[in-house]
């Protein structure tokens, strides 16, 4: 009789997407938490076994809505591994560009969601408005705002349109000029300093063991990033830093790391790095074909074998294990989403002891994306 039960989600403002945290609360402290998922389960892995290698390209972006491009990239890389294809340099740069833009847009979404949980509604309004400029770029590049279906095995679907890089440069300049406003409003806000540090702490020594990846891991003080530890696309040629816990540059180091504050600041700094990478890409992008010469799309023969490809998404390590039996369709695809550990395992462990006022901000700061948990 001590605790009451609180359902955060699926129909709740304080949840990222469609999932549910079942909390047992005493007073206003969470005693126990259980994550429930499956509200978005469509059986992707099953459906992919029923579609040809190329048809799957259209299906997979739908696995993670806020950042669909990583799915395309990682699937393409896995198929290329099986096919033993080396894609053209230009395609690599374009892929890196698309992925960085996707990261920017996902981080803008994550920060705005987070700011919403601590009640700062101006930030979401501004950031999502600004994010639309990135979506406009995508639209120009791919024809769609959200599901781009642009990267596919062998390269990218088509070359950059005329004047795209100039427009990209403009958008980057605009975004950079906006960062100061975000800092004034959120990242240097006194109440943010009061609320975020040392909230939702993942124990540093356990972070890797628990499978924490991406910005959440970097907020714990590990400078691990798939772009560095297992580089792909054009990243080996690009110069960028991995922002991680005490290296916050101009931002104050508050708290002891692994907390909401570090996670958000890491994301904020990563946006700067993304812009830096994009600038380099604009300068360095080579000419050449944007894709390989592909065989007949209806009759791809993919050699039997196992392939694993991974990409750094805005949420962490995103990987596909693709198994082919030499047929027209994949025999098995297993999607390893970063939220799988963050959303279930990590949050169930760090929630006890949290104030219910801090639960939403912890969940949002982990940037859990339910569709890549249940697929």
């Amino acid at each position, binding site marked *: 009789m001590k605790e009451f039960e609180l359902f955060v989600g699926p129909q709740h403002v304080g949840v990222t997407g469609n999932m549910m945290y079942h909390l047992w609360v005493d007073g206003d402290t969470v005693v126990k938490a259980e994550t429930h998922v499956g509200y978005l389960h469509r059986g992707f892995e099953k459906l992919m076994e029923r579609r040809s290698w190329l048809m799957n390209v259209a299906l997979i972006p739908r696995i993670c809505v806020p950042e669909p491009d990583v799915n395309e990239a990682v699937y393409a890389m896995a198929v290329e591994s099986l096919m033993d294809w080396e894609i053209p340099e230009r395609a690599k740069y374009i892929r890196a560009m698309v992925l960085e833009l996707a990261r920017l847009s996902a981080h803008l979404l994550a920060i705005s969601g987070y700011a919403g949980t601590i009640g700062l509604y101006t930030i979401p309004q501004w950031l999502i408005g600004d994010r639309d400029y990135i979506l406009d770029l995508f639209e120009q590049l791919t024809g769609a705002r959200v599901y781009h279906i642009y990267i596919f095995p062998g390269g990218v679907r088509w070359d950059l349109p005329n004047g795209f890089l100039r427009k990209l440069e403009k958008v980057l300049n605009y975004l950079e000029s906006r960062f100061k406003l975000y800092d004034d409003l959120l990242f240097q806000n006194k109440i943010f300093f009061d609320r975020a540090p040392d909230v939702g702490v993942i124990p540093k020594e356990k972070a890797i063991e628990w499978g924490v990846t991406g910005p959440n891991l970097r907020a714990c003080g590990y400078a691990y990033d798939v772009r560095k530890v297992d580089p792909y696309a054009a990243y080996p040629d690009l110069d960028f830093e991995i922002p991680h816990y005490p290296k916050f540059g101009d931002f104050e180091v508050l708290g002891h790391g692994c907390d909401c504050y570090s996670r958000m600041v890491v994301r904020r700094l990563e946006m700067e790095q993304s812009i830096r990478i994009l600038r380099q890409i604009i300068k360095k992008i080579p000419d050449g074909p944007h894709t390989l010469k592909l065989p007949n799309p209806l009759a791809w023969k993919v050699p039997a074998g196992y392939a694993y490809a991974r990409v750094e998404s805005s949420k962490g390590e995103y990987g596909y294990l693709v198994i082919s039996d030499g047929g027209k369709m994949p025999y098995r695809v297993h999607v390893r989403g970063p939220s799988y550990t963050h959303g279930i395992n990590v949050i169930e462990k760090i929630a006890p002891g949290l104030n219910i*006022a801090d639960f939403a901000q912890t969940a949002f700061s982990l940037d859990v994306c339910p569709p890549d948990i249940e697929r």
Partner: protein
Amino acid sequence: MTDWANILINAGLTALYLFLAICVGLLFMGIARKVTARIHNRVGPPIYQNFLDVGKLLAKKSNIKHNWIFDFAPLFALAGVLLALAYLPMGGYRLLSGDGDLILLLYILVIPALGFALGAGASANPNAGVGVMRALTLMLSYEMPFLLVLLSLMIYYNTASLTTLLEKQMHSVWAIDVLPISALAADIALQGMMMEKPFDIPIAPHEIASGPLVEFGGNYLGMLMLYSAGSIVVETSLFVDLFLGGGIVLNPAVYGILAYVVNYIVWFALIFVVWMIAIFINAVFPRFRIEQAFKFYWKWPTLIAALGLAQAYIMSVILGVSV
């Protein structure tokens, strides 16, 4: 029989003022949405949007309730806030404030909140329970500086009656000129009283899904919206009455009906300014946690209010200034 005529005229005027106050409150909510939207780089809804919202809610075809105690919320909330409005001078018109003083008003202000809390509690939703707990804790927080502020005014002006307070301010200067420190503390307390950010903890939608409001819909929510419209006017107007002379610029005894019109306009402008300050702060701050809010209020604003009280005490008791 002149007495009865007087009473009837007063009652009619009071009803008019109450009606106007609710309209002003709804308008203010609309303006707040518009202003916030502009801060957000948006167009925002039309400023009469909240009239439509209330109309829609009252016209909804079905309601639910959990039990009979659930009805307490809309009834007590609206009746209580109207009662509080009736005891508050608006635009220089005293309404009933001659028949009750600040302490009575302070306790009348509790009636709607308590009714609301009862209804919310009767919904059996834990979100509502936690929301009310937060609201009450917040109340304990902001009342500390606010009571000190009230005390400093009552000590300085040596009255607990709002009518007398206004009269004294009309004949000398506004209280904000003599007690600026208290006014500052009062404005900080006002932010909590109006539950604007950083103190909108009781209704935090991300945390407790709009808290006490969680189970109210349709008619019930419409009534509660009227209540919150009224309470905006109560709170801003209380500040204006206490510190800005209630907006009285013309003495009604001299200028008659003209004074009432002009004072009403000035009063409106002043509560608008007070409301806008709250809205601007609201737009650029995240929210505190409840214990942070409590600590904040019992630290800085209380200190400021205590300074203000000391000032009033020194001026009135030791220096013997009498207004």
